[in-house]
């Protein structure tokens, strides 16, 4: 059984007991425990079920590479699935639950898959589940989805908050083991701005566990001193609990800092995502131990040798009473020594190497432990826990020599450098035959903005495995003088062992797990090779090797080796799969950071926004703005409110907040010439004080924006744009001025937000302005399409006598800071004239009744002004304007284009929005022919009937014709083609 030892555990604080729960069982633990060490202290070896066969799964590792130990953590708004126990700090009251089983961890119905495992090899689903056809969607898939998936589904809104922050550095050192600390000290002493990132709460990495001396003092002491030195330097920032998740182009490093993961609900952000821009990255990310592939290597109790050592030294935990060690290298003997030091039994060390010499093995022999040379494990006994192993000759086919009873197997297949960060941004690897590993190829590093290498790997991450190699390599990164020295013994080379035993037959190979979470076995990879999935990417995708939540940290290299062997080629010929960010899974909330709720996106408010809110507004999002759609009175429907606003504006007085309209000042000797290029019409001839409606097209010739242009003075014009168009059009102007006509003397300024603009509309419009007083707004002084500036009711105002409704109408601009006050003044003064505010829907209906087009309704990016019968707004004389050439292309110049007309249903009903007018027959693809479509359609309270506008083939020549518009539920709407102006055709009202 696994239990807490009476002493030891350098990371736990025995004076601070805590309690966690696992599947409802309360378990005592200590501050400093991980969830993994906490449950192991309580003999909970089995912690989950595998993905495919639902086999029992135990903790295998002690860090980020752990494939099995995933639990649901917390509850309700703090529930988090797939939490990795080996990297999650235990805290008092932590609730955890195992995953992927039903009804219980101990008894799981899904384990039936295990019984049929030989019929469910890699990729079996591609070969079956095809008949009958409908069964995939309705039967097979639901079953597969149900038994797949891992964690439970969160249901609540996240209770925690997250944030991000930017940081800048000359050097970022990733990993605070002895390699990282050595490199960081070198960089810091050379005066560089240094950031050190360590994923765990404590620094030191493996050295402090393996316990040799550095420069005469114990590794632990040396590490503590190095950390103190770094913390004491102004040019160094050292962050623990911070995972470098990904490296992106131009030295952009992403790092997730765990702030309140282990102190939930203390008010701090749960995590902070650092976006670090650095000139250089030093990866000191260490190495990951490889499992060995022998039958039953997935049974709970079979663990990585170094992990067994970590649990003993760091957490004072004995995984088992009797631990058999199986290895192909010397390092695993450190585990034997650690266990012996802890007073535990090591029945034997099974070493695949034919002859084993060297200091570490000798030290183990000296303590009376058998070292079985040239041996391997044929199979492991046990179901939910190891009970023993069968020893065999590694070179043979698995015949048993002896059986060893044990409750833990500590395996070591050697070490693989952690090359993820190096690879994320294009760094290449080389195969080091002597060390039997892929390691960074210093000649092909990831490139920075200047095209030169931006990453260097040091220490174990660079393939250096013995302490002295590591320190020498790390020191060389920046160091002057001599590298730190250790007293660690020399180690004999490991000898690669890809399957155990060498000659294992199919039966054994089908029980050798490569990827214990996804249940990928040696036999599956061999099957993929046999079937021609020869590319490593094919094999990965076909078998799902390395696609589990650990992303193959422990399984990839063994899988590659097995694949290479099956293809009879060298490992480098096979190559590796691509390493994708993030290194460990990154919480989505951390990525979204502050952008939630009210600050999810900017909300643009006009100066009158709050007034609308206080007066029954129903909002319409327009870009990032909110505009009043209508103002509802108590008990009023939206439809009724809109109709009321329309009728009142036509008969009395309406106010519209038009502040969102774009207002761009264009000034300079060449401004007129510039505007003549920008608009389809002529603006240079516009007299000062006059207004003119204009259209803008893109170079394609398609209509992109419209608005009223005002000549403010001899050399300055004010261009109104649509609400959505303001920034776009201003950018468009600057683009042409800066990049095409840079010798033209024109300056622009976007004044959109400088002014609040209010449309005062209706028969009583002039009356209310005259009541305010201060300016002569009479028909004589201020006729239609003119402009004046002055004082209106004590406000500095610009008054534009323009109309988008067909009513007598003024648009008045006042400084934004006074917009609210001016609006309220109009409301107050307007009472006697029946004033009411109106919204965008009323605005739309008013303009539609008058047959005015609306950008975004009549236009959709494929419509040209000619389609809208607006040739009158296009200058024939001008040699050029933006879009003119585009409009000359055959399809745009075609006489067969759909053109704008009015549409009136025969029964007075409202045509469906977006409906198409059908034509006889079908096209070559069997699609019904069409001859037009509805662009705007409303109920007109003024005319008390439906009115619409649409684009119809040869429309203007077909007045009076009736078209069919298929609507919803098979209903066909019939509408007659009519003049697009439905109301006050002669324009008497506007002229009042």
């Amino acid at each position: 059984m696994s239990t807490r030892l009476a002493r030891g555990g350098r990371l736990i604080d025995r004076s601070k007991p805590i309690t966690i729960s696992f599947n409802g069982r309360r378990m005592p633990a200590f501050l400093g425990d991980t969830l993994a060490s906490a449950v192991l202290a309580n003999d909970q070896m089995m912690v989950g079920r595998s993905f495919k066969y639902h086999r029992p799964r135990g903790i295998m590792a002690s860090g980020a590479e752990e494939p099995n130990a995933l639990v649901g953590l917390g509850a309700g708004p703090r529930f988090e699935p797939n939490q990795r126990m080996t990297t999650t700090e235990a805290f008092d009251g932590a609730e955890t639950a195992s995953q992927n089983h039903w009804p219980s961890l101990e008894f799981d119905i899904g384990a039936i898959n295990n019984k049929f495992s030989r019929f469910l090899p890699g990729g079996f689903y591609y070969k079956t589940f095809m008949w009958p056809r409908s069964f995939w969607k309705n039967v097979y898939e639901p079953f597969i989805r149900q038994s797949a998936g891992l964690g439970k589904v969160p249901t609540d809104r996240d209770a925690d908050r997250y944030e991000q922050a930017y940081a800048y550095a000359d050097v970022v050192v990733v990993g605070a083991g002895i390699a990282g600390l050595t490199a960081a000290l070198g960089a810091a002493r050379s005066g560089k701005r240094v950031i050190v990132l360590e994923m765990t709460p404590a620094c030191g990495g493996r050295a402090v566990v393996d316990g040799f001396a550095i420069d005469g003092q114990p590794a632990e002491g040396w590490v503590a001193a190095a950390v103190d030195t770094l913390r004491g330097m102004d040019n160094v920032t050292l962050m623990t609990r911070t995972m470098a998740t990904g490296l992106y182009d131009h030295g952009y490093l992403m790092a997730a800092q765990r702030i309140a993961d282990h102190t939930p609900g203390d008010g701090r952000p749960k995590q902070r995502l650092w976006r670090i821009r650095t000139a250089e990255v030093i990866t000191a990310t260490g190495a990951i131990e490889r499992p060995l592939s022998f039958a039953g290597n997935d049974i709970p109790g079979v663990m990585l040798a170094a992990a067994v050592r970590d649990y003993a030294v760091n957490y004072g935990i004995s995984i088992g009473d009797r631990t058999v060690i199986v290895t192909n290298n010397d390092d695993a003997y450190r585990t034997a020594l650690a266990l012996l030091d802890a007073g535990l039994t090591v029945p034997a060390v099974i070493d695949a190497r034919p002859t084993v010499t060297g200091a570490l093995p000798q030290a183990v022999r000296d303590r009376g432990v058998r070292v079985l040379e040239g041996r391997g494990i044929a199979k492991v006994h046990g179901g939910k826990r190891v009970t023993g192993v069968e020893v065999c000759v590694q070179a043979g086919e698995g015949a048993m020599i002896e059986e060893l009873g044990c409750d833990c197997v500590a395996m070591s297949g050697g070490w693989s450098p952690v090359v993820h960060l190096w690879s994320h941004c294009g760094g290449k690897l080389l195969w080091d035959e002597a060390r039997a590993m892929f390691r960074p190829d210093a000649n092909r590093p990831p490139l920075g903005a200047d095209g030169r290498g931006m990453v260097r790997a040091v220490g174990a991450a660079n393939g250096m495995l013995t302490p002295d190699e590591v320190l020498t390599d790390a020191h060389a990164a920046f160091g002057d003088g001599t590298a730190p020295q250790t007293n660690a013994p020399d180690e004999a080379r490991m000898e690669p062992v890809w399957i155990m035993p060498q000659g294992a037959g199919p039966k054994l190979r089908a029980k050798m797990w490569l990827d214990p979470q996804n249940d990928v076995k040696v036999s599956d990879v061999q099957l993929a090779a046999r079937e021609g999935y020869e590319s490593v990417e094919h094999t990965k995708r076909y078998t799902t090797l390395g696609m589990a939540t650990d992303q193959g940290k422990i399984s990839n290299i063994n899988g590659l080796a097995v694949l290479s062997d099956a293809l009879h080629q060298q490992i480098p010929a096979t190559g590796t799969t691509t390493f994708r960010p993030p290194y460990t899974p990154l919480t989505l909330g951390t990525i979204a950071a502050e952008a939630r709720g009210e600050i999810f996106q900017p909300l643009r408010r006009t100066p009158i926004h709050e007034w609308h809110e206080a007066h029954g507004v129903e909002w319409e999002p327009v870009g990032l703005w909110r505009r009043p759609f209508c103002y509802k009175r108590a008990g009023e429907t939206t439809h009724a409110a809109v109709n009321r606003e329309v009728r009142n504006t036509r008969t009395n007085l309406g106010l519209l907040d038009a502040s969102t309209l774009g207002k761009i000042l264009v000034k300079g000797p060449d401004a007129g010439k510039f505007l003549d290029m920008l608009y389809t019409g002529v603006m240079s001839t516009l007299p000062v004080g006059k207004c003119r409606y204009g259209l803008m097209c893109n170079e394609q010739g398609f209509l992109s924006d419209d608005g009223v242009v005002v000549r403010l003075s001899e050399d300055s014009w004010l261009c109104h744009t649509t609400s959505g168009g303001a920034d776009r059009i201003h950018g468009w102007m600057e683009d042409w001025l800066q990049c095409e006509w840079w010798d033209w003397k024109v300056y622009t300024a976007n004044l959109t937000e400088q002014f609040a603009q209010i449309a005062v509309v209706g028969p009583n419009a002039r009356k209310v302005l005259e009541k305010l007083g201060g300016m002569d707004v009479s028909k004589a002084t201020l006729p239609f399409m003119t402009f004046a500036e002055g004082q209106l009711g004590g406000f500095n105002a610009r008054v534009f006598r323009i109309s988008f409704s067909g009513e007598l109408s003024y648009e008045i601009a006042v400084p934004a800071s006074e917009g609210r006050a001016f609006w309220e003044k109009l409301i107050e003064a307007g009472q006697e004239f029946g004033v009411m505010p109106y919204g965008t829907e009323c605005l739309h209906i008013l303009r539609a009744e008058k047959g005015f087009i609306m950008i975004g309704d009549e236009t959709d990016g494929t419509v040209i002004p000619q389609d809208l019968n607006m040739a009158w707004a296009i200058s024939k004389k001008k040699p050029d304007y933006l879009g003119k050439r585009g409009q000359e292309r055959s399809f745009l110049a075609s006489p067969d284009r759909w053109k704008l007309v009015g549409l009136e249903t025969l029964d007075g009903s409202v045509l469906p929005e977006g409906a198409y007018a059908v034509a006889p027959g079908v096209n070559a693809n069997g699609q019904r022919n069409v001859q037009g479509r509805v662009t705007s359609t409303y109920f007109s309270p003024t005319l008390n009937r439906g009115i619409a506008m649409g684009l119809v083939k040869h429309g203007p020549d077909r007045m009076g014709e009736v078209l069919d518009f298929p609507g919803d539920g098979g209903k066909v709407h019939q509408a007659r083609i009519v003049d697009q102006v439905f109301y006050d055709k002669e324009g008497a009202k506007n002229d009042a």
Partner: protein
Amino acid sequence: MKRYSGFAVAREGLNYHLGWGRAWRNPAPRKKYDVIIVGAGGHGLATAYYLGKNYGIRNVAILEKGWLGGGNTGRNTTIIRSNYLQDPSAAIYEKARSLYETLSQDLNYNVMFSPRGLLMLAQTHHEVRGYRRTVYANNLQGVETEWIGPDRVKQLVPIINIDGPRYPVLGALYQARGGTARHDAVAWGYARACSDMGMDIIQQCEVTGIRQANGKVTGVDTTKGSIDCDKLGLVVAGHTSVLAEMGGFRLPIESLALQALVSEPIKPCMDVVVMANTVHGYMSQSDKGEMVIGGGTDGFNNYTQRGSWQHVEETIRALVETFPMISRLKMLRQWGGIVDMTGDRSPILSKTPLGNCFVNCGWGTGGFKAIPGSGWAMAELMAKGAPGPLTEEFSMYRFREGKFIDESVAAGVAH
């Protein structure tokens, strides 16, 4: 070749699956082929497959510079839909969708087509207008879609936040027979079928030049020697411009990086595909349980298959806002692909200035869903040497006339 079936799997199981043969051969290139397709992605393989199946043209080589299906076919978010606004798009995407319905049986390879239903959320009045218009168009195009209200959306997607503070869901464009398929399986299934017809799929074979004589293509130079052909089809997505350069012509194409990501797997919680275009994010749940997420493209030319981080961030924050419960899920893996964007964001299936050289490209961010239809139409174009009804609108010369196929007008995006 051995037929796939449950019985076959069981039978082989008794023999530890030692009896399975290769899914596709791995031949050396011959001197000459009737047709060479460059690019063994879904579109290239499908083109070859329908050349053989529909036109009996089987002396075909498919050349692939890397490994088959290793481009965008194996990097996309596997969404299948045909609810496009414009007639030509609707025609070819619906052709593809309907072929997907029976593709597993046609290929004897389970591509796991899952018509689980697809929603495009309308979150502004502008989108409501655009999608209602699309529904009316689809009904006339023979594409089954419907407009559904917020309540129905909530019913189909219980985890969605209908009344988000910023963009309440006003309804959705719903295609019940839209869904997903297993992307790798589509490439592998076509490859197996092509190989079975005697076609040569030649991997690790990069085209380095295009040979021509008096205005007609005669063959290609490759890293495995030069190979002659009567007809050449370029079906290489993001690398089309590079091949076109070899052919001596330019295309209205720009190569951009598009990113996608998956979360860690959780138990089933979303049975449909949801696209939210106002906030630029779309999401479905794979059979493994991963939430499969995609977003927008970079705005600059890029061949690195590495996109810029801010697009991932934009997508995630949009989806966390739309599906608050995913906040504590974790991103497991992110990756990028190189998409080929045309001037109107619609594909090109066309003859080229070079005789007997045809191009199929410009699928941008939406190619996977089109694979069978694209292959079907391209095969017709190449076999007959002239465009059929499915391809005639997709000529590379449409831009000169200004005859665009612009899908953005319905606020729809081409994912």
